[in-house]
């Protein structure tokens, strides 16, 4: 009996149709520590967390809190046992206001049992002020960006004052600045004796905050040790089961003529006077703080939103893109940052998700030809290393990272010239990240152009030939590869364009 242990997982197993997601999992979390769990996409991290939070019921094994066996039937019981959780997949109520969403399931009540709206407003304002956030409490969630929502989720989970806080990839949707805020919070929490279970694919983060690290592979625990006993190489090797370089080496690729030119793109509310160019074989980055308007620009370019003014030229020819189909025909594709909303068709199979944007390619003698389709899907999924029981499995049963790969596969089928990747490595494990970097390299080698929007500066600096920096809906600067430093980018990102 170890009084220091807050949470213990003992021989937990969990089956899904066709998958053993968890196989006799054992590990323990000590009080006042940050316990990091890492592992490839689909290793079973989120599944275990959902078991601990009462969303799933384990098929075997036990969860112990303070060394006592507990039966956590649902999230309400989890909360009453002092457990709260930030979910990997943003799962929000679009019509709800910020203030209410902070208190969902936990509304303060007045003496008469009435929901105390005054109290909600008061506490919301307090919370927002404390964290230096200036949202209007009555803003609807659907009007926020992904990063805003993620930040709110973090605030909410912390506000419960739980003993155990599970954070499943909390930083996948927020930028550097908010990450710092989060880490400061985590420090405060652990000082108070709270324990944090932290899941992330970002190695530098892991080593900054972990006290202990547990590595998962294929539903099993490979190893669990204090951080001091680990180094990055070891963790990655354990995760992937083979050696992977932790730093990706960008190759030198010849940069060709301009394929995409954007002049004066403006949409009153979201961005104005956006000018940029992208060349063949080039990877162009877009940096900025959250809400800078990068996503909005890309959506407009991709034909998802209208814009009021501006010209877009492809290979020197003016084009008029009114919808996504036009875009695809012009060989531009875009990987969305919000996978759940704009990426996957949840109830449909992996196969159908992959072939969705190129169905016409599989038509043979007037009908969709199953063999051609299956062949193409299988080839691509193998190439992209998608882990799935079968191609007929519905995509929602895949892990987040694998879903991302499926969507990338979808775009690869269309054979694009210009790829817009909005946060392409969000929620993706190191191995897969490398595969995506490799893929980007391969694509540029083939003479394709890549626009990479990312909130991870190291990744942008590593991969890009040039970086545009946006702030408040405008491009505030452009840097060439030899000028890249985090400081310069941040300076532009926080600057207002000097006119």
């Amino acid at each position: 009996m170890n009084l220091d242990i807050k949470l213990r997982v003992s021989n937990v197993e969990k089956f899904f149709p066709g998958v053993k997601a968890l196989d006799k999992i054992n590990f323990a979390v000590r009080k006042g520590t940050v316990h990091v769990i890492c592992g490839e996409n689909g290793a079973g991290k989120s599944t275990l967390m959902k078991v601990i939070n009462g969303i799933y019921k384990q098929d075997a094994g036990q969860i112990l809190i303070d060394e006592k066996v507990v039966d956590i039937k649902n999230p309400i019981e989890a909360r009453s046992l002092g457990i709260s959780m930030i979910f990997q997949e943003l799962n929000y109520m679009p019509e709800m206001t910020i203030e209410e969403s902070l208190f969902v399931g936990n509304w303060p009540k007045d003496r008469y049992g009435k929901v105390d709206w005054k109290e909600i407003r008061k506490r919301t304002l307090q919370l927002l002020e404390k964290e230096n956030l200036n949202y209007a409490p009555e803003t609807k969630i659907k009007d926020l960006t992904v990063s805003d929502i993620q930040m709110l989720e973090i605030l909410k989970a912390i506000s419960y004052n739980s003993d155990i806080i599970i954070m499943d990839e909390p930083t996948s949707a927020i930028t550097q600045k908010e990450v710092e805020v989060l880490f400061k919070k985590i420090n405060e929490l652990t000082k108070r004796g709270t324990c944090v279970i932290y899941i992330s694919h970002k190695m530098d983060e892991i080593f900054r905050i972990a006290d202990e690290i547990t590595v998962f592979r294929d539903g099993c625990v490979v190893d669990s040790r204090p951080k001091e006993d680990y180094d990055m190489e070891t963790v990655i090797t354990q995760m992937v089961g083979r050696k992977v370089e932790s730093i990706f080496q960008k190759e030198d690729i010849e940069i060709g003529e301009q394929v995409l030119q954007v002049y004066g793109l403006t949409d009153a509310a979201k961005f104005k006077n956006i000018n940029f160019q992208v060349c063949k074989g080039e990877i162009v980055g877009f940096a900025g703080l959250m809400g800078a308007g990068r996503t909005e620009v890309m959506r407009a370019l991709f034909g998802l939103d209208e814009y009021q003014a501006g010209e877009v030229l492809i290979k020197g020819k003016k084009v008029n893109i009114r919808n996504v189909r036009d875009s695809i025909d012009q060989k531009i594709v875009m990987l969305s940052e919000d996978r759940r909303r704009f990426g996957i068709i949840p109830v449909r199979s992996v196969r159908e998700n992959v072939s969705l944007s190129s169905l016409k390619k599989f038509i043979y003698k007037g009908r969709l030809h199953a063999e051609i389709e299956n062949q193409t899907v299988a080839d691509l999924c193998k190439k992209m290393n998608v882990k799935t029981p079968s191609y007929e499995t519905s995509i929602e049963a895949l892990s987040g990272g694998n879903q991302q790969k499926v969507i990338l596969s979808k775009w690869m089928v269309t054979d694009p010239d210009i790829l817009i990747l909005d946060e392409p490595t969000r929620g993706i494990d190191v191995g897969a990240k490398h595969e995506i970097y490799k893929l980007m390299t391969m694509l540029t080698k083939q003479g394709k152009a890549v626009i990479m929007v990312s909130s991870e500066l190291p990744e942008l600096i590593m991969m890009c030939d040039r970086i545009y920096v946006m702030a408040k809906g405008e491009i505030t600067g452009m840097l060439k590869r030899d000028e890249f430093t985090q400081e310069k980018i941040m300076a532009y990102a926080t600057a207002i364009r000097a006119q």
Partner: protein
Amino acid sequence: MNALNKSKLWANLKSKYSIYMVLLALFLVSWLANENFVSGENLKNISTQISVGTILAFGQTILIISGMLDLSSASVLALAGVLSVSAYKMTGSLVIAFLVAILVGVLCNVLNGLMVTKFKAPPFIATLAMMTMARGAALMYTNGQNIYQIGDYVVFGQGRILGLPAPIIFMIGLLVLTWYLLKHTVFGRSVYAIGGNEEAANASGINVNKVKMRAFIINGIFVGIAGVLFMSRINGGMPNGAIGYEFKALTAAVIGGTSFTGGIGTASGTLAGAFIVGFLDNIMVLIGVNSYLQQIVRGAIIALAVIYDIWAKTKKTKLKLGNVESK
């Protein structure tokens, strides 16, 4: 700046209260079209006439907000009504009769709720099955015969409270109750959360099944009350009564801005929706529109009212994609 503020206010009014604007417009046009329309007596008539449907609609509003619906409400109304009338004839007690109706309404809806929460049947199918079963039970109990001579039972539907027809008072009371439940109770907020995103609501520690069950039970109470009012208003226990009222109720709720995607809707919107249909039916009768043409006009106006409402609410965000409400 003042002008700007005013125009902003106007835009806000238009988007937030668009359905009430439709109601107002319809009211004014009807006023112009026929002088009898605004008479106190006529407005009282309209309110009494829509009361039963509107009470059902309040129940539907709660259910639709939480992502469900009730196709059985009119049939359960009939079953509750005939059993209540029959209880009255047996015991002579209005109180017992009233309680019987509520009990029957609640029991049927507990069954609905069980099918939906325990057995995961889609509410459409669960309540469709209940619709058939309750109607069959009402007919079987009465052997298809109407129950007449219901004596004082008629006070519920034909009596007056504070000088107003009783059904209007019931309708107002249940409006306030629904509004309060939705706006000021944990139950109500959970209803919105579940309709907005069931999984997220569950993950936020809301007992989804309990809330759904309660939503059905409250609906059951409303249906029971509607049953009493209906039978009392038509002066008999009619097992075949109120056919099609579930649609009236759904229509009122949806015109009033409650959305089938869940998470959106208000009690007052539903009332406005019910009045839009009520005014429309009344004015067409008053000015003597051919009854077939009435159906065409009614359909067209319902469509226009909803289209205007949606347009007023969404025109500010010009996303190209159909917004989720259109689903």
